[in-house]
């Protein structure tokens, strides 16, 4: 059929419940919903400080119908490693341990714990839902914030001056068995990657782009469109890396111009044609580099 059908390819079970406290149109909450569909009920979550600390609900509530352990900001990977060890002691090999952190808890504050766990090849699945700033505390920049973006700590007069950290390459450099990117606009691809990761032992890393309407200054209904445009423009390509060496694109990326994507977001509204042209050049250059990685293996 001409319509790209997804309904029969998405597991129907729901582990997330309504009534959670995410903002309207939250990409991060949809990311959790889809990832849990792929993992199923035999899952335990280690959750550092991030938006999801709130989304998961105040005691005695929980918006996910599986064990979820709130932990300090920098410890997601360490706590997940500990839960894994405890389960191993109990002889439970079936349960997946999921570390679920935002970009702040992954790129910045939790990087040491993550690097340590990856280096030890802990048997955990680490998912970073990336909304490109510390959104929960009021939109402060993180090292995942893209070049040129406004945040409350990089105001329009002095916007973010450094490029987004290449977290996928960092994780690949640990030679972990599986690292990948995904987007909430491509749920079939996302769930396929989750299911694939679930079946692998060792450290698995998934980087999910999760647009944030208040932080990106977009309307609530644009979340999926932006998550799709990020992929189609090659700003956030969908990729998989196996054993840190075999790089692969998950789909054809048409390479749409970045301008419409940039222009739709209030956080980029101070950028002129020159800056947008610079972003396009950077995306193109990075794409060439990714193509080389795919071609040669790193």
């Amino acid at each position: 059929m001409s319509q790209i059908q997804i309904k029969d390819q998405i597991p129907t079970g729901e582990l997330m419940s309504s009534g959670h406290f995410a903002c309207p149109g939250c990409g991060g909450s949809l990311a959790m919903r889809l990832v849990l569909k792929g993992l199923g009920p035999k899952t335990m979550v280690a959750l550092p400080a991030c938006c999801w600390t709130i989304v998961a609900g105040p005691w005695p509530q929980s918006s996910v119908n599986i064990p979820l352990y709130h932990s300090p900001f920098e410890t997601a990977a360490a706590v997940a490693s500990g839960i894994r060890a405890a389960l191993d002691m109990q002889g439970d090999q079936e349960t997946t341990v999921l570390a679920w952190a935002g970009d702040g808890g992954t790129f910045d504050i939790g990087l040491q714990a993550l690097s340590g766990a990856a280096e030890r090849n802990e048997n955990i699945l680490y998912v970073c839902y990336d909304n490109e700033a510390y959104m929960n505390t009021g939109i402060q920049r993180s090292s995942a914030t893209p070049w040129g973006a406004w945040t409350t700590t990089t105001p329009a007069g002095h916007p973010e001056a450094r490029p987004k950290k290449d977290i996928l390459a960092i994780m690949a450099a640990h030679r972990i068995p599986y690292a990948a990117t995904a987007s909430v606009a491509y749920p079939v691809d996302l769930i396929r990657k989750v299911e694939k990761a679930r079946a692998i032992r060792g450290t698995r890393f998934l980087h999910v782009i999760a647009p944030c309407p208040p932080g990106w200054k977009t309307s609530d209904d644009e979340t999926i469109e932006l998550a799709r445009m990020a992929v189609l423009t090659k700003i956030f390509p969908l990729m998989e890396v196996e054993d840190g060496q075999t790089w692969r694109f998950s789909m054809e990326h048409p390479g749409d111009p970045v301008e419409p994507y940039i222009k739709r977001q209030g956080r980029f509204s101070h950028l002129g044609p020159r800056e947008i042209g610079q972003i396009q050049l950077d995306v193109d250059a990075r794409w060439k580099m990714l193509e080389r990685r795919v071609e040669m293996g790193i």
Partner: protein
Amino acid sequence: MPEKRPDSEMVHGVPEVAVSSTTTMANRTGSWKYTRPVFQDMVAPCNATCAIGVDIEGTMNLVREGRLVEARELLLRENPMPATTGRICDHPCESSCNRKSFDQPVAVHSVERMLGDLALEDPLPAAVVRIRTGKAAVIGSGPAGLACAYHLVRMGYEVSVFEGDEEPGGTLRYRVPEFQLPRVVLDREIERMRALGVDIRCGVRLGRQLTWKYLERFDTVFLATGAHRSRALGVEGENLPGIQYGLDFLHEVGAGRAPEIGARVVVVGGDSVALDCARTALRLGAEVQLVFWGECEKLAADPAEVLEAEREGVEILYQTVPLAIRGSEQMAEEGAREPANTISAGISGAPTGMPMGLECIRMTLEKPDGYGGDPIPAEDGRQVLSAQTVIIAMGEEPDFDLLPLDLKHDQVRVAVDELGRTSKSAVFAGGGIVEEPHTIAHALGSGKRAAIGMDLYMRERAGEKVEAPSLAGLRYGRVGNFSITRYRGDDPVRRTGEVNEVAGVERINMAHFAPMPRRVERRMKPSDREGFEEVNLGLTQKEAVAEATRCFNCGTCNQCEMCLIFCPDVAITRREGDKKFSISYKYCKGCGVCAVECPRGAISMTREGL
């Protein structure tokens, strides 16, 4: 030593290790929203532009699901002759198809033709039981008359159709060439109507065998006598022998008589009649030139048919204006560029027209760069085309000589309202004699509207207290034709919160579709085309079903579940049992992702609290 804790395990009302015991379902996050998504089916643009008023979108959806029997029933509700319209309708549905902004429009007519042909193979239906007391007369058995009779009979009336020609079909038989509409197809579709109870009497012409006095025994009359009178070209020499008018020529061919034409034929005109005359003359063995005053794209005919005519060997002279028709003597005097053949026998054997010529002039644009300017005669543009027969196809108009004097009309049309009511009580009119484009679809549509008007009229006359329906509500969108299904109120297609607005292309989310080329119908090779065999062979059933899957189903939910999958609040669920989607407004925060991601615009955002 830390202070000893109280006996209770609670500290400030919280246990030492806080473990959740309940879900977040107690939080009515739906109270945050100021906009509310609702499932609201809209009208597809094809439905709104169909002059017949067919639920095209609904039909395509049933075909996509492989429910071909239901699909043709839905089609036959509105259109009495889908095998015919699938072949010769000018399909405005395809011009308005939202898919044209994505790749190419859906080939609706090919799917319609497949369904129509399937229906031809069905056993004939049983006669409809007469549940109404009224009796209606229909004058003319062209598409308008047949549609009116068909819908009235299906409503349970007794209907008599009077046809002046020897066989029913009107313009379908005597104007449309057989290579476009095989007579077996037309005959079978009329046979189906007769089986339902439509009584057709042929050879009864109004004003001759049929009088207005006789018609008084009917409760109501539908006039659908059509437009048969050819317009004149209005140039010198139009009264010479060897000149024929397009409609007369096609009528003769349609009646099975080969009209006399010469070996060289020139057709003057710019519409599908002219094109059909040219292709018909070609099939009778003549060499044919078609003279048209405008540019190629101005020719008022299906471009595909123009292409076919050229492939068959019709030479079309564009931007050429006829000036005069010359007789043989004048030709000799002026020295035609191409000398006329000597007198040749007509194709039918009888001696025919003297050699003659059509004097014309080729036009060019004032500014040859193509940016405007008026057409001006080209230098050396004068030429005389030699021929033995000139066919004039300058459009048609109705013949009003036989209408009662008190019926309001002007030169070319009878005044009617949207239900086909004329100025004379009990008399309705439609088809070629009312103000509408002269297409098969418009004729079928006007017959349907009149059937609704006549039903209301007869029920009122029978003493029934009739509540006049909202006519705007019967239309698909604001300007579409009436739907019998809506009139009867028994739509078999499940709809949710229907609004009568057209789902334009801006409501389609193209990201959810993959390109898929439009399927092209097979046509007989020009070299294999013999006589009046059908040229267009259509699509196979398999191809047509595949073509229907290209339909976006604009405006109507077809349960693709995109909304359900993309909801960040798990607020859309599919109910057990009837499988309908429902939105839980207790939790929906009104973000609008579902409405944006709906591929077909079947979800609308409304303001909360209104």
